[in-house]
């Protein structure tokens, strides 16, 4: 297999998650400029350069096996992280079809899909899964189709139902969210679940984004990047488990910044679903520690400038306030003031 997985790394407890040099190099660093503000930063989700995180519809990387194990642990503790309302069954099958067809096309050495009419056979080699089932008949799978396939694909997922010129979050598999709750947001509309986000409403970002998405067409997915910061390489930073990770924000010291503070980038893609006319929202997260990012000084300089000019409302909303000064102090030693041309490239 072409990817060297790290099946034993952890995202809790001893936090042994690390990125290989190759994984750092392909990290989707999100800052084109020295300042950051919300915008309708959406573009067609077309095939990117080979090896980049944009190469395929759904990106599989060295953390695949470990992330899927962490998802299973979170689901075991809290099955409510996977929710689907009854009218979403067609959209569940749409999602299973899209992910199986994409993975088997893009990673043929790892995933195989064979179809004989409605009789489908699926092989997932990294996770050691073989399953024959009848497409459209949920009783032939060990769990409902959306849960089945999202236990096997990196990233969180929400499926939206489109009605009344709006999008409703009516299904989700959310085990690695940046402090928002699926149980709380399930069934909400686009404007409702974006309610807590500061400044963006005033800028008209959500109004334009929603209109654009309502016209999203089959076979023409779009994507955007979003970012925040996380202490320790932890996936499950949900409100439900806040006591387990919230206090870590106070644990950052000048000596451990490089290891503990992580930039967390979400590659979000939106796909129109064919049977249900719903929309799949994939939220593929990437974590890199300050030490890892600083192996490329250009990134350390850029991040230093973005954080030092970040509006307070955003810093507060993203939960960075406690450890931002220590992080800025640490990053400042990389920033010689060199003028950086626009662009996210590492060098």
């Amino acid at each position, binding site marked *: 297999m072409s990817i060297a997985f790290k099946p034993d790394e952890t995202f809790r407890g001893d936090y042994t998650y690390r990125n290989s040099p190759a994984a750092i190099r392909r990290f989707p660093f999100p800052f084109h400029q020295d300042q950051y503000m919300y*915008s309708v930063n959406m573009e067609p989700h077309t095939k990117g350069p080979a090896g980049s995180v944009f190469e395929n519809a759904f990106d599989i990387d060295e953390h695949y096996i470990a992330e899927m194990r962490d998802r299973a642990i979170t689901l075991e503790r809290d099955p409510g992280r996977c929710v689907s309302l009854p009218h979403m069954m067609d959209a569940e099958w749409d999602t299973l079809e899209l992910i199986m067809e994409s993975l088997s096309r893009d990673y043929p050495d790892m995933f195989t899909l064979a179809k004989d009419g409605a009789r489908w056979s699926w092989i997932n080699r990294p996770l050691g899964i073989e399953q024959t089932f009848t497409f459209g008949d949920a009783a032939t799978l060990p769990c409902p189709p959306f849960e089945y396939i999202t236990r096997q694909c990196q990233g969180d997922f929400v499926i939206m139902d489109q009605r009344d010129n709006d999008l409703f979050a009516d299904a989700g598999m959310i085990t690695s969210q940046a402090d928002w709750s699926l149980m709380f947001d399930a069934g909400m509309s686009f404007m409702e679940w974006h309610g807590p986000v500061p400044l963006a409403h005033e800028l008209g970002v959500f109004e334009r984004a929603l209109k654009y998405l309502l016209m999203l067409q089959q*076979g023409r997915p*779009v994507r955007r990047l979003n970012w925040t910061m996380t202490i320790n390489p932890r996936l499950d930073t949900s409100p439900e488990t806040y006591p387990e990770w919230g206090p870590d924000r106070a644990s950052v010291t000048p000596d451990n910044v490089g290891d503990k503070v992580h930039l967390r980038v979400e590659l979000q893609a939106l796909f129109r679903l064919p049977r249900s006319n719903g929309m799949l929202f994939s939220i593929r997260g990437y974590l890199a520690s300050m030490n890892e990012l600083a192996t490329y000084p250009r990134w350390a300089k850029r991040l230093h400038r973005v954080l030092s000019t970040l509006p307070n409302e955003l810093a507060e909303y993203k939960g960075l306030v406690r450890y931002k000064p220590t992080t800025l102090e640490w990053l400042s030693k990389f920033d010689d003031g060199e003028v950086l041309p626009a662009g996210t490239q590492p060098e």
Partner: protein
Amino acid sequence: MSSASLNVEIRRIRELAPGIREFSLSRTDGEDFPVYSGGSHIVLSLPLGERPHRNPYSLLGDPTVRDTWRVAVRKQEESRGGSRWLHEQAREGMRIDISAPVNLFPLIRTGRRHILVAGGIGITPILSQARELARLGADFEVHYAYRGPEYGVFSDELEALAPGRVHHYVQSRREQIEFGSLLAGRPLGTHFYICGPAGMVAASMNAGKSLGWPESHLHSEQFLAPTGGEPFDVKLALSGKAFTVPSDLSLLEAIEQQGVDAPYLCRGGACGQCELEVLGAEGELIHHDLYLSADERASGKKIMPCVSRLKGGCLTLNL
């Protein structure tokens, strides 16, 4: 957003009734068609004159049949020629381009009960919706109105899908749908869908509203606004290029074809990245974006070339 197109062959033409023809289409690359949802339409590019003519038609077949798509076309004498071409020029074996399916008339999956109404050729999206509701085991009824018995062209197909749940109204027998009584006393959670002549649609909407139906439960067929438009001329002041934007390309695509680097991100009028400064416009700027404010539009100084165009003569841009 121009749609990815598929090349298809007209496999079969059936005369269903005077002035109504059904076309069966298959992909020329031998691949399966994508799946679609009930109420979807495609856009046919028809070779009329020097520029293709784009007409939207609802898909009426069974979405699980992946090797053939069907559309039905009524000849419209007053039309600009699309339906006339399909009736007079189209032959089996001809090839045309079509768009991927788009659904602006979807079923509401949270609905408890669905009332579908078709007038004449408006049966086409209703048929695919009925098929989907039947597959889902949903509670629905169909009301189908047409001019005379010979025009009830999809009656048999409909009856097979929903035995006992189809109501026919034949105009030549003076039968007519009374929307006031059809829509009265319906339980909460009922959704109403109609496709038919404009007057019939308006009458049903008025009846619904006066009976207190929420607008979000009254649905009528919508098609995607055509992407292209009239050709127009462009001058780029900085790079010194002059060219014509053809009807089937966006201004942004035409600029890119000239090898000029223009910024963009979403290509759908939402992100604001592609904004260009207008130095001169002989004609009217046709804004289709979601980005510019009313004041910016009124100033005539800005355009979003991914979706917007000029109607008239020549547009000069600071690029």
